[in-house]
Structure formats: structure tokens, C-alpha cells
């Protein structure tokens, strides 16, 4: 049955196809203010970020014994020292811009969190964290795709990844699009576009047909948005580079009310086996600046938004002698948003004494990453069917939202 809403949208899209539908019409179709959807933004730090130098357990003596050259000094020890959070944990000094968000309780941290699977393979661990089924390789779709509730008809832009490929976590039965850059997401030759669209819509190849259909729907919607240059809110100072660009464009999509519910971006380069200190600080500076800019840019809209970060596993508790660290186990996650009960480091702390370490070398796991994500899916996105999103797993909510 074609409802009036669907009919209206289809005719609107036909108009957008020739580049004339005003943005207000799309807004009316995909969610006006007041009926705003909750939005979840997931950030993946690829390469296994060193959680112990990001959320520094400065109250733990063993931390300093294990890392004689790369440990972050205790708070109060100068510019290179950790920024105290709660008397036991501190932030890496390059994350100074996140400190106010933590103290104003918009940012929560979960520590000693990760995947229960013992793998130290980047590839497998990322795969498990994206599929949401640690240890199970046969899963074909990702947890973010499963988190999208099946709806009669939804925005073609309900799930977006910023980048050249669609990540594992967004693949699956529900439509999801990858966009490298909002400005360049267009067919350069307007005459050829309808002909190509027709070829994709009538393709006998099912995967190319559905990806093609999603692509042309997304092209139509974004065309209107491209007409206006994006101006972030005052004080929103995104870092230069791909990570900052991704966050800025996610903010742009949110403000344009295109019906986006899930967004994904990744940032690579966290695999620091050698000379970790300078490289980690550089990455963290962009990471902290990016998250802070995103918060400032979205302002009140952050009431509807939660941003969560993850990395496939942590790194060895001891440094490796090349002033770096090797592949470890548990890590930390950041959760930021208006509805987040922030200002707290969540999760049990397992300790860093030798007998407390996982396999005598890594921070042990106290919290499953799915506990965090399932709570966000259920309490923030309102999708209570967590058993579908994380099959075979009974989550214990931490009370983050």
C-alpha cells in the first residue's frame, strides 16, 4: 500500500532528481524537528590504540614499573603529565580539550573493556568488533546494520559511513551508504546520470542493483544539501585531515535532517610498536580536538546524539624495548552525548600486578564491549531487541544513559 507519505516522498525525490526539491521538503519527509530521531555515531580507532596511555591509571604503581620510558607522568608533573579525572585515572595531556567535557559530565569513559575473544590479530579483532559476534566468523552482517530497525520506508541516508568503503559493521540487509566527501558525491555529467541510474535499477545482478539504487537515492538527497556551503558553529575547530573532515560532515548531515540514524567513521594509525610517545600524542591531539569540535558544532542537538569510540584491542601493559607496545587485550571506550551520564570512569579495574594481567602481559577484560553498545542501542536508539543486534549475548547495562 502506498501511503500518502511515501507518495509524497517519491514525487519529491523525482524533483530532487532534477535538482529542485528544497531542503525543507526533504526535512518534512524524513523527520521534522520535534520528531527527531536519536543518532548514534561510532568511531573506530584502527590498529589497537594504547588505552593505558590514553586513560592513564596514574594511581597504579605497577603502571610506572611496566613502562619506564613511555608512561605518562602523574598529574601535576608538568605539561607532559596526565590530566587527573578522579584521583586514580587521568587523561593523556594531548586530550586536554576533552577534560571540560568530562568534568561537565557529558563524556563517560569505560575502561578495561573490549572483546572476550583472545585474538591478537588486528583483522580478526576488528572483524569481531564490527560484526558484534566475537569468535564467530560466519556472521555476514554488522551490529550497526542489525541495530537499524526494519521500517516500512526510511531515508536512504539512515546509515552512513564517511570513507571510500562501507565498513563491515554497516553491511547487511538494511541500506547503508559510503560517502567519501559530501561535496564530491555527485555524478559529474547530468545528462548521463539518468541513463546510468536506469541501468542500475534494471540490473540483473542483485548486489549491484541494490547498491546502485541506494546510491542514486542518496545522490538525489544530497544534491540539495550541496547547494549550501557548510559553516560549523562558532568555536567548532575541527582538526585538518580525514578524521576532522569525517566528523564535520557527520555534523553537517545531522543538521540537514536527512534522516540519518547511524554514522560511522574510522581513524587509522594506532599500531605503535616503536617510538610510541610522539606518534600517539599526535593522533590523540586530533582525536580530542575532533570530538570537542563536534560537541561545540552540534550544541543543543547533542541531546539527541551519542558518539562512541572503540579500538580492536589494547596493547601490552609493559613497553617492548623499542619504546613501543605490542598487541594486548582490554582497552578503553569513550561515550559522549547530552544524555550520557558522564564524568565517570566506568567498569571494574582489574589492576596491573603481574598476577592480575591477562596471560601475564595485558590489561585484563572486565567489561564486554557489547555491554556498552547494547545499552546505547537499547536505551538511546530505542531498539530493545538487543538479542538480534548481539545474538547469543545477554548484556549487562552499565547505566551510561
Amino acid at each position, binding site marked *: 500500500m502506498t501511503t500518502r507519505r511515501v507518495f509524497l516522498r517519491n514525487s519529491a525525490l523525482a524533483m530532487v532528481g532534477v535538482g529542485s526539491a528544497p531542503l525543507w521538503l526533504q526535512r518534512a519527509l524524513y523527520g521534522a524537528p520535534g520528531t527527531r530521531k536519536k543518532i548514534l555515531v561510532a568511531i573506530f580507532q584502527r590498529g589497537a590504540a594504547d588505552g593505558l596511555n590514553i586513560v592513564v591509571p596514574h594511581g597504579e604503581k605497577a603502571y610506572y614499573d611496566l613502562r619506564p620510558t613511555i608512561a605518562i607522568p602523574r598529574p601535576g608533573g608538568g605539561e607532559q603529565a596526565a590530566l587527573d579525572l578522579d584521583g586514580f585515572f587521568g587523561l593523556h595531556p594531548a586530550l586536554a580539550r576533552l577534560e571540560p567535557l568530562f568534568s561537565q559530565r557529558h563524556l563517560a569513559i569505560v575502561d578495561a573493556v573490549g572483546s572476550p575473544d583472545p585474538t591478537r590479530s588486528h583483522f580478526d579483532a576488528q572483524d569481531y568488533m564490527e560484526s558484534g559476534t566475537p569468535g564467530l566468523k560466519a556472521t555476514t552482517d554488522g551490529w550497526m546494520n542489525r541495530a537499524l530497525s526494519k521500517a516500512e520506508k526510511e531515508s536512504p541516508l539512515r546509515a552512513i559511513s564517511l570513507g571510500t568503503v562501507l565498513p563491515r559493521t554497516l553491511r547487511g540487509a538494511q541500506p547503508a551508504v559510503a560517502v567519501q566527501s559530501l561535496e564530491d558525491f555527485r555524478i559529474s555529467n547530468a545528462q548521463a546520470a539518468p541513463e546510468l541510474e536506469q541501468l542500475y535499477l534494471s540490473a540483473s*545482478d542483485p548486489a549491484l542493483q541494490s547498491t546502485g539504487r541506494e*546510491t542514486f537515492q542518496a545522490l538525489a538527497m544530497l544534491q540539495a544539501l550541496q547547494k549550501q556551503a557548510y559553516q560549523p558553529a562558532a568555536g567548532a575547530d575541527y582538526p585538518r585531515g580525514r578524521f576532522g573532515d569525517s566528523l564535520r560532515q557527520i555534523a553537517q548531515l545531522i543538521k540537514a535532517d536527512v534522516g540519518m540514524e547511524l554514522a560511522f567513521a574510522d581513524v587509522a594509525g594506532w599500531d605503535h610498536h616503536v617510538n610510541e610517545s610522539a606518534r600517539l600524542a599526535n593522533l590523540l591531539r586530533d582525536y580530542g580536538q575532533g570530538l570537542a569540535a563536534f560537541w561545540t558544532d552540534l550544541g543543543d542537538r547533542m541531546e539527541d546524539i551519542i558518539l562512541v569510540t572503540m579500538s580492536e584491542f589494547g596493547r601490552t601493559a609493559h613497553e617492548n624495548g623499542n619504546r613501543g607496545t605490542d598487541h594486548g587485550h582490554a582497552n578503553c571506550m569513550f561515550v559522549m552525548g547530552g544524555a550520557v551520564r558522564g564524568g565517570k570512569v566506568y567498569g571494574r579495574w582489574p589492576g596491573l600486578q603481574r598476577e592480575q594481567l591477562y596471560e601475564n602481559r595485558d590489561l585484563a577484560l572486565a567489561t564486554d564491549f557489547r555491554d556498552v553498545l547494547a545499552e546505547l542501542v537499547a536505551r538511546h536508539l530505542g531498539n530493545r531487541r538487543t538479542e538480534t543486534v548481539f545474538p547469543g549475548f545477554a548484556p549487562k547495562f552499565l547505566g551510561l544513559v
Partner: protein
Amino acid sequence: MCYRALAVLVCVSAFAGNGVPFQKEIPKDERIKQALNRFTFGPRPGDAEHVQSMGLKKWIDWQLHPSRIAENPVLEAKLNGLGSLSMSSREIAQNYPAGRMAARELAAAKLLRAIYSNRQLEEVLTDFWFNHFNVYLEKGADRYLVTAYERDAIRPHVLGKFRDLLEATAKSPAMLFYLDNWQSVGDAMERGRPARRGLNENYGRELLELHTLGVDGGYTQKDVTEVARCFTGWTIRQPRLGGEFVFNGRAHDRGEKRVLGVKILAGGGIEDGEKVLDLVARQPATAHFISRKLAMRFVADDPPAVLVGRMAQTFLKSDGDLRAVLKTMIDSKEFWSVGAYRTKMKSPLEFVASAVRSMNGDVDEALALNNQVAQMGEPLFRKQEPTGYSNSGTEWMNSAGLVARMNFALSLANNHVPGVKVATDAGAGITLGAPEFQRH
């Protein structure tokens, strides 16, 4: 209960690739297209007729022996203009200290070879094996080292013995630098106590996980550490000047090691690492892992397990003869089946090269093509992670990629790609951007 569910899933996936499509042969006249699609960077006008007149069997045999193929003089002339290609790493470090020009020439050469070489299978395999033993050009000294790596470690061995290819990569400054082994130093006794000096297990892990056994190949964390100990002292003389592989006995851990249950006696030197290579290159898990990856590239994203099994048998019987493994694949009915034919999504490199080849384009300057391949998600020599790019075509199925492909097709056909000349043909823009052309 949980285990049963797991077992069922494993069974289903094990049989998934053995369905009817891989039993059903493609018609005779499509066999030439299948060979050209999989063993070249896409057919040029006239290629099918050429193979037809030569005979398909003979053409394949010819491609399997690239040294017998006279190279295209047009390609040779174009490569002659790229001076860094024949330089040693030290010369590159001297002549191009910023590394940018050498990197540009390296990527240009890869595109030019893909588009022009008569030794197409060798190019396809060089791309495959470089990606298998991936290194990242932007990591420090690797900007000087990758040219020689592709030329001297990868290309000469792509149809040779796996053990030789493995050792060439293990001893290459490019790999030693990329996976940090050059800095790995064995623990030693200091004042009567074992002192932790600088073991780095990065290479040891990726050797087992990505280069040989595969992540499910049955090794443990202990094996990773033991392998890393065996390779201590495998380092580089003056890496930042583009220096060579050298074994430094003082950095080597001379203690006893045990790898995959095999004891490596105390007191060894460079041979400890060589013994590890001997051991892992001949494991059944390695035979299976390599065979499956080749079948993923050449047959289907989820290749039939029985075919992979036969290829692995050949691998073990022939002591890792990569030409023999490919022959087993080529002689299989699965390769010539409906399940394989035109079912692979082209990678960005395959798409761009095949589009230029299909239009008989003349490439004067490959920079714009290189940028296009990067735009589509496959920056050449710039995959940061040691996994390399996926061999599954599904990886490339997404809206960002499709938009970039359609735009490239339209500008190529209208002669708007800088450095590339084609006979303008607006219709070709639609053909190359259409769903049909995305698969091979």
C-alpha cells in the same frame, strides 16, 4: 548447544562454495573471456581474437612463462622515462631524499604495466603477492625501499617457489622496516639475570597470521614470541640511507626456542630465522591458506573447498611451486564454471586499468589515473595495515565506489582524464559506468 550452533554454521559455510554453479560449465565461447578477465587487467579490443588464433591452452601456458613473452616496446619506452625504477634503494635515498618522486614513479609504473604489459598474468600476480606481503610506502624509510622490494623480492618469485618468495620478503629491508623487526633485539643475560632488551613481535605475528599459516593455522601467542626471538638480529644497515639486509649476531637471542612444537637448539644465529621459514612454508595450514587466497582472487569470493583442497595438495607435493598450484586451479572445472564466470567485482585498480585497456587509451602520464584508483579506495602502495586489501570483491561494493567509478568512466570516455588519450566516445562512458563493467 552453543557449540552445536557453531558447528552447524561452520558446516554450512564449508559447503557453501560447493554448490551447483561450480559444477556447471560455461559455454565454450566464454572460456576465452573468462581467461582474459582473470589473467589480465581486462581485454583490449582484439585480445579475444588474438587468443582464439593462438589457441587458449597455448596462450595460458605462455602467460605462465612470462620470460618467454617479448615485452611491449611501447611499455618499455614509457618505463625508460622513469629513472628510479632501476635504482638501488641507496641511490633512491640519495637522489630523491623526499621520496615523493620515486613513489610517484613506482605507482605510475604499476599502472603502465597493468595497462600495457604483454606479461599480464605476471602483473596480476605481482599485484596479488605484493598485497599478500603488504608494506606501506609512507612509513619512514620505506619510501626508499619499496621500489626494490617490488622489483627484487616480489616480481621474480610470483611463479616460483613460495619458500623463496617468503625468504625474499623476510630479508627485504622494506619488510624489516615496515614490521619493525630491524629494531627487535633479543633478551640477554645481564649481571646474571635475563634482561628484557627489545623484543618486538610485530613481524613474528604477521609472518604466521598473514604470510603463512593464516589466523586459524594453529599457532599460539607463545609461538609468536618464539618466532620473534628467532628473528632477532635480522636488521638493516643504515635504513634511512636505503641500506641492505644484515644479520647482527649481537642483537640475536641465542637461547633455545620452540616453534610449533619443533625445538630450535641454543647457540644458533641467522639460521634460526631460516629454520622458521623452512618450517612455516611447508605447513599444511600454509598450503591451504595460500591456495584459498589465490582461489579467492582468481575463482570466486567464496571458492569451493574441494578446489582449495586440490590446490593445497599440489602446494604440498610440489614443495610450494606456485606455478603448479595455479595449473591445478586452471585445470579444474570450477575455474571454468558458472559460479566463477563474471562473479568477481573488480578492484579499483582492475576497474581503472580495464577501462583504459577497453578503450585502447594512450597513457602519457599516469598521475591522474593513480589519483582515481586512490579515490575509489585503493591507494597504491599505501595500504597502512599489513593485511593488504581484501581479495573479496564485495569489499568494493558501495555507493562511494560506484559514484567514483561512474565519474571516472564518464570523464575517460570524454577524454577528460589528464594524461590519457582515447578516441572520444560518449557511449563508452555509459558502458564503463554500467553494472556489467564492474564485474569480471
